[in-house]
């Protein structure tokens, strides 16, 4: 059995080992703390609660999703460095958590993301170039949330957990068998809104999966600044199940999220999934992780790289040949070019757009200010025209 036990940060693993020898621990059957179906070496392992049948084609599909998502992310990071984006929150390292969970959902499920769910957006069918608009500064979210059931990115930490819960309460009222998924991070688990979302979801039995990507860092604050207990255990205090899954294991994330979605769809109330993963890059391009985390830590996690892990599995099981990897590399290049092209041809919004959509039913002050601004802008046009006439 290669289930990975993770000691709390800062404590020697020896301490965790010692704990299991207490009388209480000996009475309990050993239970994997973290669901894993694929070891860092790419070896498949069984889990009693989360069986997963996969075809080679499915494995290749997941691999393709992760590779393209990482390439898109890398391209966006580069575009930020080149001054084309104002900011970029990289998902590097979290591809398995996002692709595994995203691919576990049905089209009619509804997703409420934070601002880093580029891989989930990919699974929902959102054109990746649409994700760039808000980071370039041309809009606050350039996609229609109802087209792909993928809500707008949410910047205020944890707010969307309540939106997801309310939406799920509506789903329950409608008698629909839809799963709603709220994505958030370990930092958000400290927010009152996430606690309130847990409360509301539990008491109304709302069909919402709380999907926490514990990437170990909330900007510079480590997880132990957010909690003294493993995050998935929080669910028990609210009266619903919580599970920790190896967030760098796309197969385990897929299996666990699929089960969680089914759990909520079948009227059994909410469920918390903690994907134990790692943010390998900076929080955003404005961040400098070298100030607060050790190089050795990153190296440890690089050994658990979600993409490398699945590649090893594909090779081990002969599920993909060289041509597949070469084709995928070419596809990545094409995608990267498309992203660059889309950014560089993305038009700035018209000034009048400021006044659009502030209200659905109109507002007298907005009408007045729009007219004033239009007249102001027009005054320059008149002026230029006047010069031409001279």
């Amino acid at each position: 059995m290669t289930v990975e036990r993770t000691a709390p940060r800062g404590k020697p693993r020896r301490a965790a080992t010692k704990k299991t020898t207490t009388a209480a621990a000996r009475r309990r059957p050993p239970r994997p703390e973290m669901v894993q179906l694929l070891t860092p070496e790419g070896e498949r392992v069984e889990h009693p609660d989360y069986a997963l049948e996969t075809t080679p084609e499915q494995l290749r599909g997941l691999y393709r999703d992760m590779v393209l998502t990482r390439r898109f992310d890398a391209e966006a990071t580069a575009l930020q460095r080149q001054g084309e984006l104002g900011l970029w929150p990289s998902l590097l390292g979290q591809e398995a958590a996002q692709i595994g969970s995203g691919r576990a959902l049905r089209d009619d499920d509804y997703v409420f993301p934070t601002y880093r769910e580029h891989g989930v957006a990919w699974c929902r069918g959102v054109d990746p170039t649409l994700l760039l608009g808000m980071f370039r500064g041309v809009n606050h979210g350039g996609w229609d949330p109802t087209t792909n059931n993928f809500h707008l990115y949410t910047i205020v930490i944890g707010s969307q957990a309540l939106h997801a819960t309310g939406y799920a309460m509506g789903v329950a009222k409608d008698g629909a068998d839809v799963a709603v998924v709220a994505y958030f991070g370990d930092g958000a688990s400290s927010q009152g809104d996430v606690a309130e979302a847990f409360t509301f979801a539990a008491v109304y039995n709302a069909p919402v999966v709380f999907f926490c990507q514990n990437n170990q860092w909330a900007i510079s604050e480590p997880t132990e600044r957010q909690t003294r207990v493993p995050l998935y255990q929080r669910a028990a205090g609210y009266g619903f199940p919580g599970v920790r899954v190896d967030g760098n294991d796309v197969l385990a994330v897929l299996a666990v999220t699929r089960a969680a979605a089914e759990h909520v769809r079948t009227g059994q109330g909410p469920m918390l999934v903690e994907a134990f993963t790692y943010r390998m890059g900076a929080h955003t391009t404005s961040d400098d992780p070298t100030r607060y985390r050790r190089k050795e830590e990153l190296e440890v996690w690089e050994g658990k790289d979600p993409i490398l892990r699945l590649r090893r599995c594909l090779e081990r099981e002969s599920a993909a040949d060289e041509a597949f990897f070469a084709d995928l590399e070419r596809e990545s290049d094409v995608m990267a070019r498309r992203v660059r092209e889309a950014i560089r041809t993305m038009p700035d919004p018209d000034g009048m757009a400021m006044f659009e959509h502030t209200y659905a039913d109109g507002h007298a002050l907005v009408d007045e200010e729009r007219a004033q601004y239009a007249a102001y802008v027009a005054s320059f046009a008149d002026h230029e025209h006047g010069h031409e006439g001279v």
Partner: protein
Amino acid sequence: MTAEKMAMAKALNSSLRKALESDPKVLVMGEDVGKLGGVFRITDGLQKDFGEERVIDTPLAESGIIGTAIGLALRGYRPIAEIQFDGFVFPGYDQIVTQLAKMHARSLGKVKLPVVVRIPFGGGIGAVEHHSESPEALFAHVAGLKIVAPGNPSDAYWMLQQAIECDDPVIFFEPKARYWDKGEVDAAGIPGPLHAAKVVRPGTDLTLVAYGPTVKTALAAAVAAEEDGVSLEVIDLRSVSPIDFDTLQRSVEKTGRLVVAHEAPVFFGAGAEVAARITERCFYHLQAPVLRVGGFHAPYPPARLEEEYLPGLDRVLDSVDRALAY
């Protein structure tokens, strides 16, 4: 059907009832709104008749109430969230300001947020702290929200219907000190536009603007002033965002003087906005500076001092005298 005399609390209750009857997507939610009927009994009997699925008792969490109302609206419902008292809205303020107000614009108009947040506001009922505040300016400063406050039972009935029908989020401030005042409500009538101010008493010497609980005070001031031979035109603003400046302008062009009264602190309040805009629009008609009368720049005081803090009849008349003295 003829008009019926009823208290504002009853008018609001009837209005909610009508909304629940006419649209199955309408929901009432909040702390104690079910069996208790709300701390002011505005939702009295609604859960009994419409069930727990439509009239929802919530956990004691204001951010949770507003945040889940947003989610319900995204699912196609029209939630009416009750906040028990003005000072309790602040745990939900983040959701209102950062989420509810902006989501329509952020989605480039793709999603609508038809959420009404009902807040009993204002003082004069001898309550403890956080139960008597007037935070409307804090909301009016935020684009994406609409802010209204009825001053009588008829407006309470109709404006709440209109707020529920509106596709924008509406913060609906109910003057709790006027809940028990009675007035005519004609449920068969045709209401005017939600955001139109109303001249509730015509006059010629000075325009006195008020909304919510101060409308009654303003009307009393007009009666008192008449005894002194002064004719006040009283305008019920009704809507704080947007503000119907056209109606105000017409009145000020006629009277040449303007006093704005509200319970909220004067500093950065709705009166400041009215004064600035009317000065801009009516500069050559004004015979006196626009004056404001309202709360002080101090925390809302303990109940035994609130009569000093609130703009009562005497302070309103004092402002009127000052404006007439120019």
